[in-house]
């Protein structure tokens, strides 16, 4: 039966699985070993008890080892910063490049309670707690104790987080060369401009698409120089096709998990799975296998009519990823389940058009990024997805210091209430929520109670 178990329980269960189960990937193993590496916050989480979830967690928590191995094997490493889902697709179109997402270092203090050293380094560099937790990335670069320093750093600027730009500029100032590329703020075409319909239902003028194409062309040249091979249209199309396999798997997973009568997979595992869309956890092929496993597990649970929560739990749509993973467990403790998410990279979950020239398709996807457009556009997409997944309430999670979260939450909340008349609550979720757990609990429980009372209509 599906249920959520502790790390200690997982270690016992792992032994059973190992003895009875099929061949395990080389990165699998008891989850408890990651605590020995210092990931002590993992002790506070509750995990799905499936073998597929174990594989997902082990895949996530062994990324650094994978990157070091890639380097040892002679692969070139590309750090794709800020960009949420475009440059990794290009990089993985070349067989001797592994791309990763240094911004992901923001999770390090979230799972390694004792590892506040990264944040202290950022503090010393003038990037204090008024910035997004991504600032931990600065510490990870300076200590070199986490991911290997990439051979090429690419970072998007323009219509992206102001605070992230400041963090990346600070990194640049420390001597880490960065290849910048610009994403313009997406706007609707003027009457005399040619309109391009973007994935996700947005529009942009042709000139903006052309501009992004020219930016991607610069990146393509840099990637070719690094790889020592051409990134022609055939390779790029194949890369897009593979990225779409990930996106298609995730789309199916999201649809099944968010709409199933009984919740077949916890919010926490869904968050980790969705994140794979933007960074592939440094191994695109393995990402596909991990997601297929999860999907099979979910399908089997739905077919068997089993889930881990009661059928009457409140159906919650969640906006923005949390800085403290425990909060995803907390939602379920409070009587809610995830039925829809918008973690700032919805565009990376939509399939990339395969009937267009590949650079055009990627440029359109980059412009469809929720962060590249207005808050009103973002709220519109959220409303559409809330309807699709049948969510009954909205949680907007703010990340302290993240400029988008600070400004957009209220706009999104008001638009959703106006259009859908569902209750909305905003939460501020810092990397460590232990001391504020009672107040977070009250807000989430009150939201769930409000949903239940509304059902009595």
């Amino acid at each position: 039966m599906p249920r959520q178990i502790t790390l200690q329980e997982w270690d016992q269960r792992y032994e059973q699985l190992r003895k009875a189960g099929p061949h395990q990937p080389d990165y699998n193993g008891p989850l408890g070993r990651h605590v020995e590496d210092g990931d002590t916050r993992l002790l506070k989480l509750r995990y799905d008890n499936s073998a597929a979830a174990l594989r997902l967690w082990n895949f996530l928590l062994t990324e650094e080892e994978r990157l070091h191995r890639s380097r040892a094997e002679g692969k070139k490493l590309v750090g794709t910063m800020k960009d949420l889902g475009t440059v990794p697709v290009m990089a993985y179109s070349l067989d001797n490049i592994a791309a990763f997402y240094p911004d992901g270092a923001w999770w390090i203090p979230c799972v390694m309670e004792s590892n506040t050293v990264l944040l202290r380094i950022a503090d010393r560099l003038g990037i204090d707690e008024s910035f997004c937790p991504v600032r931990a990335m600065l510490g990870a670069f300076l200590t070199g104790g986490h991911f290997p320093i990439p051979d090429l750093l690419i970072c998007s600027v323009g219509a992206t987080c102001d605070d992230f730009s400041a963090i990346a500029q600070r990194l640049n100032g420390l001597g880490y060369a960065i290849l910048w590329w610009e994403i313009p703020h997406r706007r609707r075409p003027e009457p005399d401009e040619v309109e391009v319909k973007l994935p996700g239902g947005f529009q942009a003028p042709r000139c903006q698409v052309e501009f992004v194409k020219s930016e991607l062309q610069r990146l393509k040249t840099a990637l070719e120089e690094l790889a020592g091979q051409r990134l022609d249209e055939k390779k790029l199309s194949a890369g897009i096709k593979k990225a779409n396999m990930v996106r298609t798997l995730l789309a199916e997973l999201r649809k099944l998990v968010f709409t199933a009568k009984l919740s077949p997979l916890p919010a926490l595992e869904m968050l980790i799975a969705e994140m794979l869309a933007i960074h592939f956890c440094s191994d695109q092929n393995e990402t596909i296998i991990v997601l297929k496993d999860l999907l099979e597990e979910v399908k089997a649970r739905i077919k068997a009519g089993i889930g881990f929560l009661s059928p009457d739990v409140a159906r919650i749509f969640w906006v923005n990823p949390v800085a403290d993973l425990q909060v995803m467990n907390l939602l379920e403790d409070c009587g809610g389940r995830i039925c829809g998410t918008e973690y700032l990279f919805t565009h990376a979950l939509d399939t990339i058009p395969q009937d267009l020239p590949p650079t055009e398709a990627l440029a359109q996807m980059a412009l469809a990024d929720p962060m590249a457009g207005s808050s009103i556009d973002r709220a519109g997409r959220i409303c559409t997805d809330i309807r699709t997944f049948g969510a009954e309430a909205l949680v907007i999670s703010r990340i302290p210091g993240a400029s988008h979260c600070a400004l957009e939450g209220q706009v999104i909340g008001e638009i959703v209430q106006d259009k859908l008349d569902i209750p909305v609550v905003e939460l501020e979720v810092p990397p460590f929520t232990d001391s504020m757990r009672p107040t977070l609990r009250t807000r989430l429980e009150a939201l769930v109670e409000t949903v239940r009372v509304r059902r009595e209509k």
Partner: protein
Amino acid sequence: MICAGIDAGSRTIKIVLIETDTRRVITKAVTDQGVEQDKLASQLFQRLLKSSGLGRQDVGRIAATGYGRNAISFADTTITEITCHAVGVRRLVPNAMTVIDIGGEDSKLIRLDKAGRVRDFAMNDRCAAGTGRFFEVIARRLGVNISSLGQLAAKSRRPAPISSMCVVFAETEIIGLLACGAAREDIIDLPIVFTGGVAMVSGMDTALRSALGQAVTVSPDPQMTGALGAAILAAKQITPY
């Protein structure tokens, strides 16, 4: 049969006993909060039952609310103070559309729909300015009783700013909404009912009225509305009309 509502707040514990069928209040009481919340609540509960000539067997259901609700071991269920204040206030002020609850250590704004159900809510628990704890500290500093703070303030001819923060709420989401240019009527539906222990501090309703630019009604028995709501919701679990 009776039902009980226990509001284990950050500063005080309040208990209301009601008749399950009629929802009539039988008795109520309040005591100061302490380290042993469960024990204090239990003692108050036993005292109330005894003074009313009732026994534990007469109690059908107990609902706990408030910050310490999960510490009340003898409660059958827990409900947040947001839902309980909405129900309690609506019982006392049937046309209430907005509830402002200022308790010992936080403040809440609750919007209701026409049927009295919670539409949405905002909480400020990041800053204690304007809460009961804040007034306790001020009263102690001034060497006066908390109940005379209002009279003292009314005599002031040159109010001294104590900080750059708002007098009533600091950093609240409510003020945030106002600052963003939203029309007051879009944020707060009338009538507004002021509840929670701080509503008993004289002058606070005037300060709220002034801050909001709207009439504010102080709830009858404002300290007890959370416990009353909890008792009604407990009774609803037995007789849901």
